[in-house]
């Protein structure tokens, strides 16, 4: 078995846009375009990018919550995009997802006990009553919630607590891999820190592997071993998180980092302010998708889509005019 828990190869997801006479297809959004990456066991891969660039689509495609258009997903050595429903169910025990909005991801009509028991029902785990109860309490303890939470409803909890419940639900099936789709974006800073700590503690304790999606670079950089940057459906740069921050090669990465407001009043290097808007994913610009906003763009950028450049062992980017250190 390889050291990689998850391997994504040339994953593409195209959403057809219906319209026109008789609802024909009139266009398509390439929400995820030919993306490949690997995640090691116990590693956290951060994924950043602006709104609509395809982060969620990528995350959900990996779990086949969205059926990918093409590409391969190899999880734990198994190619999952052809798995039968029964196989898929077994695989889902090992892969879980946590969503951005903790309130929306809890069924408001179920108690926390029901919510946490559901995965066990589905996978027929801990069917014995006492064992079930013990497991529920263990889960609550793992996410640092009191035992009396079991009989309560989601609306009785604060945002941070709800996110913990979501985490507990994901943990209920003892997964190896969790896609965290912006799990802290909806939370206040003080609560965000609690959840980030919890996720990191759990990783240490249970040896989890994360794909951590966020648009907050600070959090991503903090939690991840490696960070991937997406722009308009494409992965434009991947590197060790410290390396990415210090030595971004793609102008977009650079701009993204420089745009982060620093909670300090010290002088900072000059900020790169990008011109213009993010283009529509329905008709991305020709060539490098970033070219209209890029200050380094040359003719070639406007014509051909750049291929992957392997910078160092773990650092890759797609750019004709990478920024030198």
């Amino acid at each position, binding site marked *: 078995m390889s050291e990689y828990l998850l391997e994504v190869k040339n994953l593409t997801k195209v959403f057809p846009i219906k319209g*026109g*006479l008789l609802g024909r297809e009139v266009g398509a959004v390439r929400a995820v375009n030919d993306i490949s990456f690997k995640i090691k066991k116990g590693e956290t891969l951060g994924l950043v990018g602006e709104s609509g660039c395809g982060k969620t689509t990528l995350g959900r495609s990996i779990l086949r919550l969205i059926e990918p258009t093409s590409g391969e997903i190899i999880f734990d050595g198994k190619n999952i995009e052809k798995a039968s429903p029964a196989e898929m169910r077994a695989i889902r025990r090992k892969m879980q997802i946590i969503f951005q909005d903790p309130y929306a991801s809890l069924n408001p009509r179920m108690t926390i006990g029901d919510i946490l028991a559901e995965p066990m029902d589905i996978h027929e785990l801990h069917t014995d009553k006492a064992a079930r109860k013990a497991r529920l309490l263990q889960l609550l303890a793992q996410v640092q919630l009191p035992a009396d939470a079991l009989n309560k409803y989601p609306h009785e909890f604060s945002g941070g607590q709800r996110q913990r419940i979501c985490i507990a639900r994901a943990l209920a099936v003892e997964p190896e891999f969790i896609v965290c789709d912006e799990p802290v974006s909806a939370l206040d800073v003080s609560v965000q820190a609690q959840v980030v700590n919890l996720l990191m503690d759990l990783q240490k304790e249970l040896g989890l592997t994360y794909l951590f999606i966020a648009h907050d670079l600070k959090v991503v950089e903090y939690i991840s071993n490696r960070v991937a940057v997406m722009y308009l459906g494409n992965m434009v740069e991947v590197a060790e998180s410290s390396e990415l921050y210090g030595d971004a090669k793609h102008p977009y990465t650079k701009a993204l980092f420089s745009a982060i407001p620093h909670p300090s009043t010290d002088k900072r290097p000059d900020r790169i302010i990008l011109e213009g808007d993010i283009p529509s994913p329905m008709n991305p610009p020709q060539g490098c998708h970033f070219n209209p906003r890029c200050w380094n763009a040359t003719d070639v950028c406007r014509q051909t889509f750049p291929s992957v450049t392997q910078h160092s062992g773990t650092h890759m980017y797609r750019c004709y005019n990478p920024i030198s250190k």
Partner: protein
Amino acid sequence: MNLYSYILRRLLYVVPVLLGVCLIIFVIFNVVAPDPAFILLGKHATHEQIAQLHHELGMDRPFWEQYLSIVRSAFTFDFGYSWSSKQQIWEMIKAGAGPSLSITIPLFIIVNIVSISTALLVSFYRGKMLDKTVLILSIAMMSIPSLAYILFGQWYFAYTLGWFEISGYEAGFPNFIPYTILPVLLYIAISWGPDTRFYRSVILDEVYQDYVRTARAKGVGELSIMFKHVLKNAMIPILTYVIIQIPFLILGLLLAEAFFSIPGLGGITIKAINTSDFPVIKAMTILSAVGFIIFGVITDVLYTVVDPRMRLK
């Protein structure tokens, strides 16, 4: 996609729906409904006459032919003859449309103006006494069955007080006016409650939108907010509600026409129901379904006019 192809597409959808309507009509009246022959032949019918009538009515033809003939009538509006009155149905419809419209059009206009204005007014004073009073009043008025309105109105206003004609109708403008005032007024009373309530809730939905707060922050006056910002946004559900009433306008007001002896389509429909006049019932059903579908399309198209978000590039 441009507006025209959108309209065309919506219109094309009319076809399967109309075929469906015809199918339902066919199943009900040609397949499962009781044999109409007895009604038509009167008290001295013979077996021979019944068989002949079946032939005459095409009831002995294969089902698909019968279905096709319904479909044909839906597209040509040639509905054949009434069983009960032996009249050509299309002529009956033409004759009945005028009287029906002479009450429904004034009613439609007045009741919508009145209830939209009331709704704007109470939305403006939302939560205040006026709003609560109107709300309770409108619910209360909704809770009385329309038959009670008619019975009472005719007896009290027309007969006891003598303010209006008791019943009757004369064709032609303005001859019909004295006859239509009372039914129109009664139906205004009947529809005012539900309409006002609907419009109020639609308008209130808009009143709490963020853009209203923006308008206030700009210093826009409350009246201007109601009539410019809110009304234009509320226009979308209002339009739907208003336009969807139109096909029913054409069908007339069943009860009113019966009680006020107005020779409209509503009366024709009631009579057809009472005499099991299937061709007329079928025709009325098809007619109103066609109206309903067409006005559905019109609504969709008007959406794109009123709401720029629906405007297609």
